[in-house]
């Protein structure tokens, strides 16, 4: 069937694409189930985006607020997501996350403690109770190191600095992936009976983002190209507090833990403006609302010198600030010459998290193609229209585990699939084409132009007109992306890598713009100036994107109905 000798080939039961929290947790579970497992990642092991997570992991352990329970966590998650979440995912997530956190501890993670010797929990936006287990403001590092060490101990096979550029299918079943080693530029075939996508987010399609270079939506784009459904793509979270100055660090995250620990937002007139927008929850309102509030203050001329708001924690004792927010203290001191124990930080919205992604089944994490599973930020459903802080890290371990379990079970009962050399040849040809063009555009230029389109036309506030223009602009960018030229050799060549990542970003950007245009209402992170209110009909529908030939198709499916006892939990009057 295929000319196997031409490519380095590896064969596993379960292939996991992504070595962030979701991918590593999936790998651990699949290994424990006895599967042969490989994990691929674009970066070195331990450097995935998860390492940057700061504030904490949400789990109703009730160590600090004894009244907390999975039911309240469920309610907060559903209400934060404006009820278009997949309720079953939200339920499983709320029920299972305490056990997943305990498990991390049993594998060596050291969370901050209460005076009783239990895991300490802090307040965060949208959470009724103190719920975020944390390690200062470096929770993600603790988590990824713990998972990494556990995986290494179990004998995980890691393909570091290897980028997947295509899913391989046999009929419509996913049977492996095709990629290249970033170091030498050599191609590699990864055969597997089941594939788990755990590739993270899409922030790099925007210029002002808290995300790393890896977050180019690869998993979503590759799944889409292979024929899988994408869900809720209009819901992109802009975190209210990114750095705004100096320019080089614009977008870098200022953790919500600053507000969790008592940080106050003010405009240039010194007004605590959240009193106007959400007097009840103030700074700890949900992210969508705080982000829009800051944006509005700035737009109406009450912003800081560099176009942000002031976030102040200096009323707390300096030692407390340094102990609870050490990396924020250093980040501002070293990168912005600001001592946050003495004065305020300048902050503004930054593109942060993708609620949308690969459509999955709640229990099994199975995507709409057989053999494909997805977990973590690249999957959709749990967070609905808006994610609560801390609910991503818990998402990674709850659904990462489920993905590992289900993928290994699927692999155990499935024969190996056939590899189609035609698919490989096509992917290889596309990948190498930019070297062969005599002239053509630099991928960095096209990337910059894409980012400007997304920032200006598909940002926090949207209108039909802007979104229509964006789609036309994206069409032009897609054309330009077919004529890229890359200089140099195939050895560790970032320009070449970007040329491929750009294609993924274009796909997800288009999916975002199309879904946003369709949803004629404002809900959670999706704010339409021309349709400023939530709409009852849209509240019952999710947008689904799929591929039809070369065209992107959009359709609506009904939001899954909750059983009565859960509906009561999320009712308004509590």
């Amino acid at each position, binding site marked *: 069937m295929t000319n196997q000798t031409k490519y380095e080939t590896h064969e596993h039961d379960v292939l996991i694409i992504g070595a962030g929290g979701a991918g590593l947790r999936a790998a651990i579970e699949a290994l424990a189930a006895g599967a042969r497992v490989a994990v691929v990642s674009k970066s070195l092991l331990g450097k995935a985006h998860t390492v940057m997570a700061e504030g904490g992991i949400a789990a109703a352990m009730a160590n600090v607020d004894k009244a907390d329970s999975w039911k309240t966590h469920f309610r907060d998650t559903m209400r934060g997501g404006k009820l278009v979440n997949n309720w079953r995912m939200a339920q499983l997530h709320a029920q299972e996350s305490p056990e997943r956190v305990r498990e991390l501890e049993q594998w060596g993670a050291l969370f901050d403690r209460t005076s009783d010797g239990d895991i300490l929990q802090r307040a965060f936006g949208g959470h009724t109770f103190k719920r975020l287990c944390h390690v200062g403001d*470096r929770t993600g590092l603790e988590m990824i190191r713990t998972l990494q060490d556990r995986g290494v101990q179990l004998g995980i096979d890691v393909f570091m600095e290897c980028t997947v550029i295509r899913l391989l299918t046999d009929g419509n079943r996913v049977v492996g992936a095709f990629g290249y080693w970033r170091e030498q530029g050599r191609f590699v075939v990864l055969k597997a009976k089941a594939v788990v996508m755990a590739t993270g987010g899409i922030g790099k399609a925007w210029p002002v983002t808290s995300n790393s270079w890896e977050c180019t939506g690869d998993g979503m784009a590759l799944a889409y190209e292979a024929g899988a459904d994408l869900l809720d793509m209009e819901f992109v979270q802009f975190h209210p507090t990114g750095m705004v100055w100096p320019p080089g660090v614009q977008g870098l995250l200022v953790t919500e833990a600053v507000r969790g620990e008592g940080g106050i937002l003010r405009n240039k007139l010194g007004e605590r403006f959240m009193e106007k927008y959400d007097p009840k929850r103030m700074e700890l309102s949900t992210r969508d609302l705080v982000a829009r509030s800051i944006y509005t203050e700035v737009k109406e001329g009450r912003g800081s010198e560099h176009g942000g708001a002031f976030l102040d924690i200096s009323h707390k004792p300096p030692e407390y600030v340094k102990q609870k927010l050490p990396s924020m203290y250093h980040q501002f001191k070293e990168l912005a010459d600001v001592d946050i124990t003495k004065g305020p930080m300048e902050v503004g919205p930054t593109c942060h998290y993708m609620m949308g992604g690969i459509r999955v089944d709640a229990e099994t994490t199975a995507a709409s193609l057989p053999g494909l599973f997805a977990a973590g930020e690249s999957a959709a459903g749990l967070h609905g229209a808006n994610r609560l802080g801390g609910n991503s890290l818990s998402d990674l371990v709850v659904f990462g585990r489920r993905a590992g379990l289900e993928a290994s079970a699927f692999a155990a009962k499935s024969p190996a699939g056939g590899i189609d050399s035609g698919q490989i040849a096509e992917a290889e040809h596309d990948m190498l084409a930019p070297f062969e063009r005599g002239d053509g555009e630099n991928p960095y230029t096209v990337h910059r132009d894409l980012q400007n389109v997304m920032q200006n036309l598909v940002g926090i506030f949207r209108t039909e007109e802007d979104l229509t223009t964006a789609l036309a602009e994206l069409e032009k960018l897609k054309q330009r992306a077919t004529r890229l030229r890359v200089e140099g050799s195939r050895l560790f060549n970032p320009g070449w890598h970007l040329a491929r990542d750009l294609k993924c970003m274009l796909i997800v950007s288009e999916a975002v713009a199309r879904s946003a245009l369709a949803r004629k209402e404002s809900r959670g992170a999706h704010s339409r100036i021309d349709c400023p209110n939530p709409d009852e009909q849209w509240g019952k529908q999710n947008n689904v994107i799929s591929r039809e030939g070369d065209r992107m198709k959009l359709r609506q499916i009904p939001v899954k109905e909750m059983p009565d006892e859960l509906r009561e939990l999320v009712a308004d009057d509590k």
Partner: protein
Amino acid sequence: MADAILEVFRGNQEVGGAKQYTVPITPGMVVLDALHYIQAHLEPDLAVRWNCKAGKCGSCSAEVNGKPRLTCKTRMDALPTDKPITVYPMKSFPVIKDLVTDVSWNYRVNRKIPPFTPKPGTDWKMYQEDMDRVQEFRKCIECFLCQNVCHVVRDHHKKEEFGGPRFFVRVASLEMHPLDNVSRAKLLKDELGIGYCNITKCCTEVCPEEIKITDNAIIPLKERVVDEFYDPIMKLVRKIRGAPKAG
């Protein structure tokens, strides 16, 4: 604003040399920004590792003006501009391309270390005061700058018989975990070659996380090795005094 001249290593293990680039300086710019400027405007194939741009992932290590640094935390305005700013790959690791080095040795060392092994029947109660010193070690972002600067690796190339400061920090984080129950003293002595370390403290000086590698990790570990292998009486005394476990 003014321009800066960057002198960046281009090439691989066999061939290569420095190349100069002119980069406009913007306020607050860090060396990694300058490298990104070169990629976007001058040479798109310049190989650099980075992820977070916030000093959290430890990917962007290099030698700036001869000093091992995270390039994302090295401000341009803290460097003299009257001469070119040199940016070279970490010297102790083989160059793959430009500023990207082969750090796989570190991952191999890591595999030798027995994992966290809790005491049987533990109730998972831990107190902050018992954890503080371990949490210091857990801050490590694996930038490998300490590995790069340690003379045992850098000048004496003892990669086979030596683990390096990063992994002493890791072993310390396990050995001093309040609930861990195995000894890694033999590993430290025989496989990680802690005896090669002569406490020069160069590793501590470069650690961007300000972990007191030598004082807080290496010296206590050396004491454990001594107790276990050369001074059983001391071991007993320490045990009775209830000092951190040594076996």
